[in-house]
């Protein structure tokens, strides 16, 4: 028997003429999230998304929990719009809940009547059903605030009943907000930043700067694993692994050490600035949080930002480290991020980086670098990986020459 879920969305309801586009995208994303679990059907009905899937309900719920745009959802029983049927189904659900959790002593019935042809109002339906439940289960007392058991009834094309509401991630459907390159290191912050951008509907193209042999193959593996977690919400991602070694080498030998980090970040911006138009990306996403490290002071951010003309989105700009860590934990990236491998940033950090570099002195410090050639060369030697929730497939896309990348413009 298929399990049916009723999904609630928030902000999309406020959209105007383009609401249809948001809803269709949401429905498509929901279908994709459960497609490999079993045959499924997704439809839009009366301000909700309904999904039936022939699969383990726990597994299906696990997937729905990650779909951007979903505010909350419930596994529902649907019955015909008839007071007698609705009441007996509600009583049955309450009995099941009490059998499962004998500690339940208070309950509440909450009805939403979207189908106004139903003979009773929401309030009347609630009290009618509540009375029936109390008759069958006299040990239960009605309580309006914080009941142990909440029986939700939604009267739409049919009646949908549930006793459990599971929170979704919120946000907007993935794919409704344009594209951006998300700079992803192996650290805690950048995957969280990418997740926040994706939650606002932005298609993210993760970009990782790899400096082998100065950083290990395992640090790349770590980024792949982080992207696999993000792919649970976004679907397949194209990870760009930029060959950053020669740029690091040039910085290390030609830039004075106090300014190396700022120059390195500027080089990353330049690489992205060149890559973005080819991939149709309109912005960059970084994990910067104001003042967290030397390269994240306002002065540093200004100097780094000046290397690109693209808008740089910084979803974590006002977050504290502990908040970011908690969010990483919630998304599922934290345990991967704390694996002990060098990321690109940590190895070349000088003992005393400048915290307030001016753009002027930074530009003087990097004057010796042939930035154009370095960026071109780094992109030509980059590779793309197709990342899904289950793994990475280099064969699907493989290394790309600069020319081939140009062709996709």
């Amino acid at each position: 028997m298929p399990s049916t879920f009723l999904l609630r969305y928030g902000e999309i309801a406020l959209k105007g003429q383009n609401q249809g586009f948001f809803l269709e995208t949401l429905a498509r994303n929901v279908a994709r999230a459960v497609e490999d679990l079993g045959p499924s059907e997704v439809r839009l009905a009366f301000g909700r998304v309904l999904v039936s899937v022939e699969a383990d309900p726990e597994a299906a719920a696990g997937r729905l929990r990650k779909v951007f745009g979903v505010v909350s959802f419930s596994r529902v029983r649907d019955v015909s719009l008839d007071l007698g049927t609705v009441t007996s189904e509600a009583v049955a659900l309450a009995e099941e809940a009490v059998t499962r959790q004998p500690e339940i002593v208070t309950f509440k019935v909450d009805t939403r009547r979207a189908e106004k042809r139903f003979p009773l109002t929401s309030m009347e339906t609630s009290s009618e059903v509540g009375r029936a439940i109390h008759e069958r289960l006299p040990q239960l007392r009605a309580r309006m605030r914080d009941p142990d058991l909440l029986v939700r009834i939604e009267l739409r094309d049919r009646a949908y009943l549930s006793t459990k509401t599971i929170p979704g991630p919120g946000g907007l459907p993935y794919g409704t907000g344009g594209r951006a390159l998300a700079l992803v290191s192996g650290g805690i912050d950048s995957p969280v930043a990418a997740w926040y951008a994706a939650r606002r509907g932005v298609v993210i193209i993760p970009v990782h700067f790899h400096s082998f042999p100065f950083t290990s193959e395992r640090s790349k593996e770590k980024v792949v694993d982080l992207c696999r977690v993000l792919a649970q919400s976004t679907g397949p991602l194209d990870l760009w692994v930029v060959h950053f070694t020669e740029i690091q080498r040039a910085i290390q030998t030609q830039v004075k050490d106090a300014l190396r980090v700022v120059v390195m970040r500027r080089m990353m911006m330049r690489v992205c600035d060149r890559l973005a138009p080819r991939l149709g990306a309109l912005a960059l996403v970084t994990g910067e949080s104001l003042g967290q490290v030397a390269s994240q002071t306002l002065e540093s951010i200004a100097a780094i930002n000046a290397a690109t003309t693209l808008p740089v989105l910084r979803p974590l700009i006002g977050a504290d480290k502990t908040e970011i860590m908690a969010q990483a934990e919630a998304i599922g990236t934290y345990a991967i991020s704390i694996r002990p491998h060098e990321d690109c940033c940590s190895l070349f950090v000088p003992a005393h980086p400048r915290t307030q570099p001016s753009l002027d002195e930074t530009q003087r410090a990097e004057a010796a670098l042939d930035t154009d050639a370095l960026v071109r060369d780094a992109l030509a030697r980059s590779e793309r990986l197709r990342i899904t929730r289950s793994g990475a497939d280099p064969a699907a896309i493989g290394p790309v020459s600069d020319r081939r990348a140009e062709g996709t413009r």
Partner: protein
Amino acid sequence: MAEREIYLDNAATTKPHPAVVEAMTRALTQEFGNPSSLHHKGLAAERLVKDAREAVARTLDVAPEEIVFTSGGTESNTLAIRGVARLSKGRHIVTTAVEHSSVLTPIRRLAEEGYEVTELPVDGEGRVSPDRLAQALRADTILASVMAVNNELGTVQPLEAIGRVILGHAAGGRPVYFHVDAVQAWGKIPLRPKAWGVDLMSISGHKVHGPKGAGALYVRKGVRLAPLLGGGDQEGGIRPGTENVPGIAGLGAAASLLGADLSDVAGRMTDLRDRLRRAIAAIPEVRINTPDRGAAPHILNASFPGVRGETLLHRLEMDGIYTSTGSACHSHDPKPSHVLLAIGLPPDLCTSSLRFSLNRFTTSDEIDAAAAVVARAVADLRTLVR
């Protein structure tokens, strides 16, 4: 990556020999029975285990009944240490500061449980002094655990002298059990547990072209051990659980390959290692950490000041050369190896060290090619860190 691979990380693990793979394949595809089964299939599997036991026993010059198969070095060490402690009355254990973590950790865990532990210091070459060990022994000492060959430096411990000290001490009262972690020594130096008064000796298959997950513990006849696991009466009840027949067959095949020509093989490896040592020593500022004399034939440890071991390792990897660092480097916390610290190496030299380890099939061509790349890589990396 490079077309040619030169694998110089044989102290970490070795490539399984074709004869090992064949023996294991046979055990997996044909003789797949349970040695405890009464029928013919069971008997055939039992024979594989018996042959392997004899092959392993021969390499140590001990009786087959004295070999207990385990899952490898870590289990053998833990079984020896905890197995002795459980059945002994005393409270004191002696070991060295340079043991492998699979010896130090079980012993430190016993310390948390109330045992007293003496970790003997070592000299600048990583060697423990038999005299110091003699001084450390007490009336309530139950166990002395000393490795045969240090896994990072290659230093050989004076086991024969230590064995004499322990026997002399025990002559007066209760016996002190002598455990030797011989995981890095097996197949590299002669091991004579009987002659040295060793009660327990750990070996592992995958360091000698055998399979991972298969090892053994020599348990001298008359030594009683408490098992770590509860179950059937396999391996004399000391190591219950259905035998890992494919692993044991592979271990047996690897043992047979060690053969009787150890001195030839060891001599050739020593020559190659010394060839590598000379080439590496010619690189400016290098410090060779492996002792000139009294080292196993397959290990060379060196520090390259100004270069991080991990970076050099990855740089060599680009040219197909596989090595190992003594330390696990974390991003902001390079944790120097306890062995290198114990021989008095300053922390910065510890984190710039690399271990090269040979196997008996390593060629002089490989050594020359590797040495040339190392020299080039060190020079290159030094230009980046001034």
